[in-house]
């Protein structure tokens, strides 16, 4: 039996606006006292009128642009009706016919749409009761719907990490899967022997990246097994929703899925249509930061490896630090700075304002007189104390002596005082380390070990 998984992902991203989507309530809902950020609009009280948050709309469009979408100039909100306790109005304001953004692409995965909607309240299930907190109700949510172009759990992970990176680059959400500000609902079925399709299954309650991968793999295996038993294929009514049980590591049937018609979508009568002119959309486009792909390409032209380029561009703040130091496109010390950032500086929390590009240039210009451990120490200390590393190097006597005349004098003494080590060296040239160590010691650690070794070798041949 040949099995080809067909996977589409719906990703919800909670925008980090100050206020909610359709009312002026504080949108913070993490670790807040329950039901302290509510008003008639987000509690769904009769007669309350929603007014969309302009910034949330702009951010939704911004994300669409970053994902290569076409932006609908005229859009409108719709009501998606369903009954569930965490949805106080009994409908969610969402977009169906005219989302803000359509037809995008993220690498090999086509994006069907990026639309704006609102989050529901939060339910806590205890002792046979459900407790409801509406602080999250009405928080702006953007939904990114992919086409079913994903073929494996690994591809799903890659796609999610890319979305997360882009959202974070744009600064519109924390996109934290564990915290729930980014959520993912995979829809999966299988193509069997290039001919038959198993029924669609949407998976809910996946709360981690590993969970997404494990749940998809579980569902692939389960559907293959199911199909081999009952040979049931996909039709327009047998789509189901299954929950992911992270403890049992399996999916379980939650409900027969409502079809789109069951939600009785209709245009939201309380919110007039929204028009973003071409000029306004272009103005939003102009605020797009340099995206990860562009950064990686730029770093490669600076001579950095794929590995370094990827590491540097992983996080927009981190890469902006590199960009502050390396401003020339033909910088000779890009690799040097990349090593410091990915190395010693990665271990501490960096504030970009405290980064002085001059310090890095000075270190680079003097790198031949400094040991690699001294460079590591100096880059951290100069950042910490906000003092030029060269001043620190002088104070701490870290400059290496590479002056051969000076080192020759020391080396002659060392040779005269260590006849046994010299004899050893004559038998086994590999044992020169001991003599180099003695030169280092006599110079108070300031000798350049490479130069010291060369000087010793030269003197010992002459002997």
């Amino acid at each position, binding site marked *: 039996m040949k099995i080809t998984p067909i996977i589409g992902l719906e990703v919800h991203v909670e925008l980090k*606006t*100050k*206020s909610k989507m359709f*009312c*002026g*309530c*504080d949108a913070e809902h993490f670790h807040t*006292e*329950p*039901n*302290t*950020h*509510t*008003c*008639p609009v987000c*509690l769904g009280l009769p007669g309350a009128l929603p*007014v*969309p*948050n*302009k*910034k*949330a*709309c702009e951010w939704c469009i911004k994300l669409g642009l970053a994902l290569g979408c076409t932006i609908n100039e*005229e859009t*409108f909100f719709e009501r998606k009706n*369903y*009954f*569930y*306790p965490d949805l106080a109005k009994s409908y969610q304001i969402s977009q169906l016919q005219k989302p803000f953004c359509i037809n995008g692409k993220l690498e090999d995965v086509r994006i069907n749409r990026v639309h704006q909607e609102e989050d529901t309240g939060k*339910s*806590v*299930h205890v002792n*046979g*009761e*459900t*407790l*409801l*907190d*509406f602080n999250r109700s009405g928080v702006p949510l953007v939904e990114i719907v992919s086409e079913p172009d994903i073929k494996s759990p690994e591809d799903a992970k890659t796609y999610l990490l890319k979305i997360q990176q882009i959202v974070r680059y744009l600064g519109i959400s924390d996109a934290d899967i564990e915290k729930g500000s980014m959520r993912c609902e995979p829809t999966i079925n299988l193509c069997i022997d290039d001919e038959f399709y198993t029924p669609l299954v949407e998976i809910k309650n996946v709360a981690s990246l590993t969970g997404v991968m494990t749940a998809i793999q579980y569902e692939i295996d389960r559907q293959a097994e199911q199909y081999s038993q009952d040979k049931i294929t996909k039709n327009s009514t047998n789509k189901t929703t299954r929950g992911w049980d992270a403890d049992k590591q399996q999916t379980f049937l939650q409900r027969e899925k*409502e079809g789109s018609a*069951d939600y009785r979508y*209709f*245009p939201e*009568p309380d*919110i*007039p*249509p*929204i*028009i*973003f002119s071409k000029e306004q959309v272009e103005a939003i486009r102009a605020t797009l930061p340099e995206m990860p792909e562009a950064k990686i390409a730029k770093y490669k032209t600076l001579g950095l490896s794929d590995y370094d380029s990827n590491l540097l561009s992983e996080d927009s703040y981190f890469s902006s630090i590199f960009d502050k130091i390396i401003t020339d496109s033909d910088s000779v010390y890009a690799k040097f700075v990349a090593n410091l950032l990915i190395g010693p500086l990665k271990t501490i929390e960096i504030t970009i304002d405290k980064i002085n590009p001059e310090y890095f240039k000075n270190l680079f210009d003097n790198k031949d007189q400094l040991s690699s451990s001294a460079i590591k120490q100096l880059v951290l200390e100069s950042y910490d104390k906000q003092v030029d590393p060269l001043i620190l190097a002088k104070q701490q006597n870290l400059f290496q002596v590479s002056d051969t005349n000076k080192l020759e004098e020391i080396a002659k003494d060392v040779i005269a005082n260590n006849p046994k080590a010299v004899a050893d060296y004559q038998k086994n040239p590999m044992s020169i380390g001991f003599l180099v160590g003695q030169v280092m010691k006599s110079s108070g650690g300031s000798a350049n070990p490479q130069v010291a070794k060369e000087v010793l070798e030269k003197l010992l041949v002459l002997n």
Partner: protein
Amino acid sequence: MSSIITSDVIVKVAKLARINIPTEKVDQFASQLEPILEHFESLSKVDTTNVVPTYQTTGLNTILREDIIDTERMFTQSEALSNAPQSSNGYFVTSATIKK
């Protein structure tokens, strides 16, 4: 008009509306709903060929608000819960939505 309200339709609508309808009542509801739908069916006799669908009557567009927190309109916790039939520790309480 042929019967469009079958007992299956009643069961499905009840499920979507989260209403429990006893099995013996299903046929009764079906026969009651039928004439109601027939009544609205008369609307489809109106010729709407040249009528633009109306979702909005105000002629307004793009009414948006700035992203500002408006504490004036926010409820206190006790105000928010004041109409709740049941509440506990600041939460609204309903019967369990998940069977486990």
